[in-house]
């Protein structure tokens, strides 16, 4: 295999890192395609990476690092299968060696999409789909994923192992679903990607490295998905949604780390280039004329971002988008946001009436945004005691300390004379 002359260790490491990130899913998908054994493919690949890190610095980076890694990993995988007892018989081993041998070195077929559908298969527990996807497709390690999802590394590792065993033993295929089931299955892929983004989004200040990275990884995956499924409008819709949100990251906290509500954010701090990209993605999505949840949510973000140009927000437009979202999903979260938009147009009483529609939902009791919304609307109607109570619950449910401080400040603004009497 041809190599280029380079003795620069840093360049080698940088190349290895780039290849690791970009090729992990592609190589795992290819190595595990036949056996369904993702864990074995990952082991072989990580051994290949280790070999690369010891060989490349002295011998130079190969011109096609991906093919180099595949060749080494393939050899490791076949060795591994040969020594294993519960694996396939000799016939299957030969067939596998043959399949793996057939690959033209410079043209590794991209089966990442099939792998994404396998990781988000309905037979896989919904709670582990996001972590599984991040590990198998992007190669993040279990400890890193665990810290981002607030789980113990041991528990996360165990659940990931279990999910991979399920893929292999239950025979979950690496395939792109048929046209008639694609929509439903794609939704599961998108939900898993969005769940990763949401976990990263919680860390607004970006102080927790693992979580900030997660938002970036989710966007990376979504961009990949737009390359693999360029004609699916919801794929572009979700990319737009995440980019709009990410573009506002620098404005979400003040210089001293305090929470800044969306309406008060300094639009000059928003990432203009990212917003441009979001707008383009949303235009591309709506060109297909097939509306979906993520496109609607992105359109709502787009309406908020308009303030950058016009200095004001069209609540009329936002309300009708939430109307559509409520019709489409029936989600209580959409109903809460719709109530807030309605309050901007018709006053806080109308907003509270709309909010009452969701108060019967059992999930609402522990849903912080409901209580924060109720508190804000109560303040505006002058119902200070109710506002105080709602703030109290919202504060108790909030895990971000900056948001908690903001809510405490709002609650304190109500004055102390409405505090319940001390015993």
């Amino acid at each position, binding site marked *: 295999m041809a190599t280029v002359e380079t003795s620069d260790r840093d360049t080698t490491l940088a190349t290895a890192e780039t290849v690791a990130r970009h090729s992990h899913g592609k190589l795992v998908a290819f190595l595990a395609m036949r056996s369904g054994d993702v864990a074995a493919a990952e082991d072989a690949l990580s051994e290949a990476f280790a070999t690369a890190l010891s060989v490349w610095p002295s011998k130079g980076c190969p011109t096609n690092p991906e093919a180099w890694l595949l060749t080494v990993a393939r050899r490791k995988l076949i060795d591994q299968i040969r020594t294993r007892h519960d694996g396939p018989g000799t016939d299957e081993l030969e067939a596998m060696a043959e399949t793996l041998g057939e690959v033209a070195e410079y043209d590794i077929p991209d089966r990442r999409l099939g792998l994404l559908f396998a990781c988000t298969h309905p037979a896989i527990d919904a709670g582990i789909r996001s972590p599984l996807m991040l590990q198998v497709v992007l190669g993040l390690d279990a400890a890193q994923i665990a810290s981002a999802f607030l789980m113990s590394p041991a528990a996360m590792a165990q659940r990931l192992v279990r999910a991979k065993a399920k893929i292999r033993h*239950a*025979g979950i*295929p690496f395939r792109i*679903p048929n046209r008639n089931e694609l929509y439903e299955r794609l939704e599961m892929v998108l939900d898993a990607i969005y769940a990763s983004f949401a976990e990263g989004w919680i860390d607004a200040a970006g102080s927790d490295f693992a979580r900030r990275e997660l938002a970036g990884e989710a966007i990376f995956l979504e961009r990949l998905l737009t390359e693999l499924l360029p004609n699916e409008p919801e794929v572009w819709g979700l990319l737009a949604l995440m980019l709009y949100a990410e573009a506002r990251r620098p404005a979400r906290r003040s210089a001293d780390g305090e929470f800044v509500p969306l309406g008060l954010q300094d639009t000059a701090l928003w990432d203009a280039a990212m917003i441009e990209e979001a707008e383009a993605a949303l235009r591309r999505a709506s060109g297909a004329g097939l509306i979906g949840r993520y496109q609607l949510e992105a359109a709502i973000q787009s309406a908020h971002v308009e303030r950058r140009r016009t200095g004001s927000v069209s609540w009329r437009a936002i309300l009708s988008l939430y109307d559509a979202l409520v019709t489409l999903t029936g989600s209580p979260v959409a109903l809460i946001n719709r109530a807030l938009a309605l309050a901007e147009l018709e006053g806080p009483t109308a907003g509270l009436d709309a909010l009452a529609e969701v108060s019967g939902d059992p999930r609402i009791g522990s849903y912080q945004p409901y209580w924060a919304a109720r508190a804000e609307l109560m303040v505006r109607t002058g119902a200070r005691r109710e506002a105080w109570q709602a703030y109290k619950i919202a504060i108790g449910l909030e895990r971000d300390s900056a948001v908690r401080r903001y809510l405490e400040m709002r609650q304190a603004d109500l004055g102390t004379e409405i505090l319940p009497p001390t015993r």
Partner: protein
Amino acid sequence: MQYLLTLYVDESGWGKMTPEQQQQGAASYMAYTEALKAAGALVNSNRLRPSATATTLRITNGKTQVLDGPFAESKEQLGGYYLIDVPDLDAAMSWAGRCPAAQHGVVEVRAIWSM
């Protein structure tokens, strides 16, 4: 790959059905079995006698314990099975979804551990 579809159903349901409904129920299972055969996916299938006729056996400390009745008492009991041969879990799931038991009970899909 081979998969075992196990059918868990409420056995008391059958007795509460009218003869016409029973006939209809049996016909739907027959049609399903025929469809599996026609697709070349059926390996084997059987309906089981009611769980009340089951005998459970276990050997503890070399002593055989025999109990009258099923292993687990629950509302839904193992009532029958289909052993099918299909390419992957998606195919197995799509057959499980067409099984009449999915309408009035539960169908469990398990891959066969091939030796």
